[in-house]
């Protein structure tokens, strides 16, 4: 029967005027296939001696020849050491404690080396402080093997030798004639560096050090210095916090250098019916906002007023602020909550304004907050943006005779980089200490090429009294020399920096060997007080007045932020970080303007999902003081109306591989290092293709992430907050885990080990460290933006992010359960559509999902070649060499955790990332197979690590203690969200965790009996 139905391929077809649609109606292909190029030339065809038969013969011959040639195995050589170092056993990993201090991230880490090359970074859990690595720190090992690193010192853009460079620099330094020598550097916070600078000052008298933090914390630093007399930042330990109030501070993310999430996560896990209460006021939706119990989207101007209002309510004083009723009411409640928490309450302020920071200090003091530690502050930000501005004008005035630029790239990251570039031309001697030809290095005369931190020595006082040592874990790969070594040499000190450092360390009374092994030493001897003279204190009354009277600018308020992946952009050439999805937007390889739905509608900004689910968006034009940049716009639920957000760190081009030159540089908007700016935004049309790893934003009321509130949880009624799914057996509701409703016979797993993993959704902040750690441990390939857009990302571990469609997830579920019929107000037809749309200020939840290692795995039963099979230890095995790539398993997996190798990702020019060059391949873990094209892969629960633990015990002839078993992700999660272990060990933590009443399995109703479990998320509302 003929049908008159018309099927639409896409919405574009509805548009009659669309040229493409018209063309395609007539032609099968959008453009003509160029057959004429070879078929059209009759003469050539006739003259050719190659007939079709010949062609087939050639094909046959080459196939046969190739298969014959393949029979012969290649000759493989093995080159042992001539003198094997005592501590190296080929095939065994060595671990060294060291410290990353790159100006943005500071952490004590353990470096895993194999046969002398670092292949993985782990948290140094024994460190007294900051012993946890975030996603960037985990990825930093790949930057060591960056093909774009400089391989030798450079003189005027040409590779040179150190002798030559030393000679020329010394000659120029001798001609300073009293002119100033300026060291423009990142924050080193290094005791030995202070001494080196002192030596430099002895040699060249007129020396000035300007500290420049790419991401500036000037407001907080100024406030702290004005109050406590030292340029540092207060430290926070949230472990015992009761009420945490953050105004614009993304402290779960990278606020003030980050690293606070460990204590925060501890406070979030309900213990004895108690957990912290977190209230967040912010403009962009940040990790902190996503984790908060209550979140209020407010503009930066409102944030100032909120600080003022809170000051009035807690410290005292009549303040008149013009906040909306809803916000004003919430501020009132917040103040009560803070006061009730007393010294377990804390206020954090991310407003880049000294007045706001100063009042925050005052409020915390009034609370007598035990969360804040001002006695032993954090030393990792000491920058002074004003001094940088001064330096530019001094250079222009010709006062500066020589400039050393170390650890920073002002020509990329300074807001007025053109002015800086012009100024630097007026300096006779300019030396950049950089490891790649970045924008600044390309501009200056001399590049004293520096090594990666894994090839260097250093000491860093991350927190006052705690000095962390950096030690090399590999010999310098290239002809590099670290800054300290160069400065020592140019000060006429022939001592090696290692000896110098050893002396400095020993002088404090610390044992050198012990400190190196631990990665740090604590000292009370540190008496260096960094100060900047011109900091003035504002009186609290003035500050209050200024904040209360803050006026909303016309246009939009821009809040600049840094992403979990790229941070300040210094590791932009790192494909792991480029491909790490932003925890909130789930977008990779990009930065963009985040804008609220209301503003998007007003401006005409459109986001739409195209046929394959990928996201497309239009552009906007952002203008600030004549600086104009075009950004793609991404509609962000939770973005405060009237505000936009842009990530810094993107848009770098100098010394960045073409694939990694992503996004648009937003530093030109970072005027004076202030993250909040008033800008104008215009629609700029066009079409931008985003590469998101998640297509669905809401859960549609499904039972994926289980949530409850603290009150319900306190009742202890598990059926209410964590009900077991039931199925009907002979009309009797039976728990899905009951053997009566089970299709399968269970194996006996009582003997030996049985691995389980638990993920506490309360402790997971969504930081992404586990994703990068998994990348590094399991040789997960990078696929690139175009492939991510096709949903072909290879991450074995993903962190799903869901927005609620109504005010909360529970309301979503209630709404779904309340559907009645197809049509009408409660109709499911329109209702489900509504559930797809995230709320303006949604609740946000994160859920790390990897292979669930089901005991009744659906993937195993459908594999035609038994490539996927089950181990007695609970792991679902994947034999790559057996896999023929039918992808049945992926189709049958309810969790969608299997990843298919659509291409060969190593040694393939089409995927020119680290696996395509010899240097980059050095990061590959030799214990894990590098997969080839056409096979399925997935999380193995790090079977190489569990097997290694077992073998170590066998070698020693002992039982395995709890805590020995680990996976890459459980090691990387310093927040304690991931617990891993053997449930057959009844004393183990994982066994205890499995008995908790918050425990549930993902999609339990499917009956897969996973070995990965989750703990219900409890919100303290």
């Amino acid at each position, binding site marked *: 029967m003929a049908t008159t139905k018309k099927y639409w391929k896409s919405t574009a077809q509805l548009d009659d005027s669309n040229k493409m649609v018209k063309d395609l109606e007539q032609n099968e292909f959008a453009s003509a296939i160029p057959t004429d190029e070879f078929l059209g030339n009759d003469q050539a065809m006739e003259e050719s001696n190659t007939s079709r038969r010949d062609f087939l013969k050639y094909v046959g011959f080459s196939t046969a020849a190739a298969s014959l040639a393949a029979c012969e195995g290649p000759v493989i050589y093995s080159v*042992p050491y001539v003198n094997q170092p005592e501590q190296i056993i080929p095939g065994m990993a060595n671990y060294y404690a060291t410290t990353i201090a790159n100006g943005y991230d500071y952490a004590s880490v353990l470096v895993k080396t194999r046969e002398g090359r670092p292949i993985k970074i782990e948290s140094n859990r024994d460190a007294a402080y900051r012993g946890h690595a975030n996603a960037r720190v985990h990825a930093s090992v790949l930057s060591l093997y960056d093909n774009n690193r400089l391989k030798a010192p450079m003189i005027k853009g040409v590779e040179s030798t150190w002798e030559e460079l030393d000679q020329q620099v010394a000659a120029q330094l001798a001609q300073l004639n009293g002119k100033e020598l300026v060291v423009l550097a990142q924050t080193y916070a290094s005791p030995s560096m202070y001494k080196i600078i002192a030596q430099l000052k002895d040699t060249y008298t007129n020396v000035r050090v300007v500290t420049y933090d790419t991401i500036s914390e000037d407001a907080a630093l100024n406030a702290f210095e004005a109050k406590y007399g030292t340029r540092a930042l207060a430290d926070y330990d949230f472990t015992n916090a009761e009420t945490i109030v953050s105004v614009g501070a993304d402290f779960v993310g990278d606020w003030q250098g980050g690293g606070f999430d460990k204590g925060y996560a501890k406070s979030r896990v309900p213990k004895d019916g108690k957990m912290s209460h977190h209230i967040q006021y912010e403009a962009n939706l940040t990790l902190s906002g996503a984790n908060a119990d209550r979140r209020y989207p407010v503009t930066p101007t409102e944030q100032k007023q909120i600080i003022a209002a809170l000051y009035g309510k807690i410290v005292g004083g009549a303040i008149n602020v013009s906040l909306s009723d809803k916000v004003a009411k919430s501020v009132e409640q917040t103040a009560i909550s803070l006061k009730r928490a007393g010294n377990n309450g804390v206020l954090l302020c991310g407003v880049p304004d000294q007045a706001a920071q100063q009042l925050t200090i005052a409020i915390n003091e009034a609370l007598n907050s035990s969360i804040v530690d001002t006695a032993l502050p954090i030393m990792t930000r000491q920058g002074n943006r004003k001094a940088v501005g001064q330096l530019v004008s001094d250079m222009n005035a010709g006062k500066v005779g020589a400039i050393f630029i170390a650890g920073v790239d002002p020509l990329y990251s300074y807001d007025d980089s053109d002015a800086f570039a012009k100024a630097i031309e007026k300096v006779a001697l300019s030396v950049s200490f950089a490891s790649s030809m970045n924008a600044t290095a390309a501009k200056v005369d001399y590049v004293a090429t520096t090594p990666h931190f894994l090839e260097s020595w250093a000491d860093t006082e991350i927190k006052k009294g705690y000095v962390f040592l950096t030690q090399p874990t590999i010999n310098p790969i290239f002809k590099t020399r670290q800054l300290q070594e160069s400065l020592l040499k140019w000060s006429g000190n022939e001592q090696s920096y290692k000896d110098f450092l050893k002396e400095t360390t020993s002088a404090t009374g610390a044992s050198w060997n012990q400190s190196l092994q631990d990665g740090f030493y604590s000292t009370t001897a540190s008496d260096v007080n960094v100060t900047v003279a011109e900091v003035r204190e504002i009186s609290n009354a003035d500050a209050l007045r200024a904040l209360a009277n803050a006026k909303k600018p016309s246009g939009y308020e821009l809040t600049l932020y840094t992403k979990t992946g790229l941070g300040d952009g210094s590791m932009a050439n790192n494909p792991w970080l480029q491909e790490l999805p932003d925890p909130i937007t789930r977008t990779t390889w990009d930065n963009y303007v985040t804008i609220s739905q209301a503003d998007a509608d007003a401006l005409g900004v459109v986001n739409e999902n195209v046929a394959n689910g990928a996201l497309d968006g239009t552009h906007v034009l952002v203008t600030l003081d004549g600086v104009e940049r075009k950004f793609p716009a991404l509609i962000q639920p939770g973005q405060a109306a009237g505000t936009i957000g842009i990530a810094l760190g993107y848009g770098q081009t100098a010394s960045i591989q073409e694939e990694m030159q992503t996004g648009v540089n937003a530093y030109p908007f970072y005027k004076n290092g202030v993250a909040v700016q008033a800008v104008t935004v215009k629609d700029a049309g066009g079409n931008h293709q985003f590469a998101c790893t998640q297509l669905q934003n809401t859960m549609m009321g499904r039972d994926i992430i289980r949530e409850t509130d603290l009150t319900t949880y306190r009742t202890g009624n598990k059926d209410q907050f964590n009900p077991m799914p039931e199925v009907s057996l002979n009309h009797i509701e039976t728990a899905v885990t009951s053997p009566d409703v089970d299709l399968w016979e269970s194996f006996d797993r009582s*003997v030996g080990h049985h691995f389980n993993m638990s993920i506490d959704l309360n402790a997971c902040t969504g930081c992404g460290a586990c994703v990068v750690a998994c990348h590094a441990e399991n040789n997960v390939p990078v696929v690139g933006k175009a492939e991510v857009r096709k949903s072909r990302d290879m991450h074995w571990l993903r962190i799903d992010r869901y927005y609620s469609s109504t005010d909360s997830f529970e309301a979503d579920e209630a709404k779904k359960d309340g559907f009645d019929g197809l049509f009408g107000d409660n109709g499911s037809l329109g209702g489900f559509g509504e559930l797809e749309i995230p709320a303006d200020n949604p609740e946000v939840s994160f859920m790390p999902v990897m292979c669930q290692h089901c005991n009744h795995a659906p993937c195993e039963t459908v594999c035609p070649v038994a490539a996927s099979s089950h181990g*007695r230890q609970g792991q679902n095995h994947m034999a790559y060499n057996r896999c023929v790539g039918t992808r049945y398993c992926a189709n049958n997996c309810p969790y969608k955790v299997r990843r298919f190798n659509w291409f060969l990702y190593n040694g393939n020019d089409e995927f020119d990332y680290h696996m395509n060059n010899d240097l980059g391949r050095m990061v590959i873990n030799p214990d*894990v*197979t590098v997969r080839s094209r056409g096979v399925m892969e997935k999380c*193995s629960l790090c*079977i190489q690590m569990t097997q290694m633990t077992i*073998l170590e015990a066998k070698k020693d002839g002992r*039982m395995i203690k709890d805590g020995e078993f680990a996976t890459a992700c459980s090691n990387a999660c310093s927040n304690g969200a991931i617990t891993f272990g053997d449930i057959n060990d009844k004393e183990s933590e994982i066994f205890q965790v499995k008995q908790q009443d918050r425990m549930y399995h993902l999609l339990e109703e499917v009956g897969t009996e996973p070995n990965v479990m989750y703990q219900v998320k409890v919100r303290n509302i």
Partner: protein
Amino acid sequence: MTNRKLHFSAWQFLLAFVFVVLNSLSVYAQQDATTSDGEPAVPVDAVSGADAAKGEELFKANCASCHKLYKKQVGPALYGVSQKYEKEWLYKWIVNSAELIASGDARANAIYNEYNQSNMNAFPQLSTVDIDNILAYTDTEKPAAVVDVAGAEGTAVAGSGDNSVTNNIILGALALVLLLLVVLLIVVNKTLRRFAEANGIQTVFDEATEERTPIWKAFAQNQFLVLVTAIFLLLASAYFGYGALMSVGVDQGYAPVQPIHYSHRIHAGTSQIECKYCHSSARESKHSGIPSLNVCMNCHKSIAEVAETTYQEGIEEYGIDYNKEIEKLYAATGWDTDEQAFVGEEQPVRWVRIHNLPDLAYFNHAQHVTAGKIECQTCHGPVEEMEVMYQYSPLTMGWCINCHRETNVDLQGNGYYEKIHKELSEARGGRQLTIADLGGLECGKCHY
């Protein structure tokens, strides 16, 4: 009929002839090998009253690790030392050289300084008689026999070269003889046929050919035979084809030529060096580890030359000059035999890897050697007999699996296995456990 029979016997004769010739050749080769075996030189008494034979024994037990007779090693060459120094002084020096040096003896200090101020061990256990015996031995002339043997070596090498030439000549002559025989046979055949023709016997022959259908036609007409043959051929080709395909990538017997000829026969066999002395990481790690050269130098610092007999054996049986191979080691480590120090440039050796598992398979030596207590020879074969190391086992998955199925696990005395073993053997009714029972057949144990 006669004709055919004649042909047959001729071939038989030919075969037999070739067999005999070949046999005689191999016998000749064996004789060649035995005749050139050199006898060790007999020591000669030089100092009257002293027993050089006893001296040699003592020398080998006490001195040989640092001294040689005619060549400087860790210590000086000792030939003629009794002429150089008076006996009393030598007694003092040998019994306790440090004391002598400390006493300020000029000559003692000169030697001490010459040899980088390293002390010679004290030998208080040696009596003066013992020392006399040793000195008697050290005065043994560099035996002419050694020179002769060296000469003999030369000739032996040359001889073996000659042998190969004569072999070629003999073979060539034999080929000629064979050719002649073939020609002769053809001629005889023709002559006989002519005789037959002349005598009119050929009619029987012709009739037979005319009447009989050719054998291949008869065969083709017999459908049963064709069927059976076809089945047989198919089965045979399947069998051999399968065998051939299964051996693709299996390098059993792979014995590549190495940059330095290293004899496992001498080290593991003759010298009885424990495998894991050199391959120490087999105890700890997944790799057995090709020993780094500093391990070689632990012994070869003082073994610059192999014993005469070993040397001869190397030359004759394997065509290898062992001393030259040791020199290669010295070149790679930068060892200078004269200065007794590492002075040269280090040059890592590019060994050819013999056992190559594909990347997709994970194998761990420590698991088998330390936890499993398996002898190296179980997989690597009689290494102590291998002059040239080769791959003994097929290293196929079937081979691994078989062993995992069949081998009973020895879990005694390993604390890790105690609980598991108890529970498992209860579950398995108390029978001995195999590796398969412990999960040793699971894919993910070796493939990840």
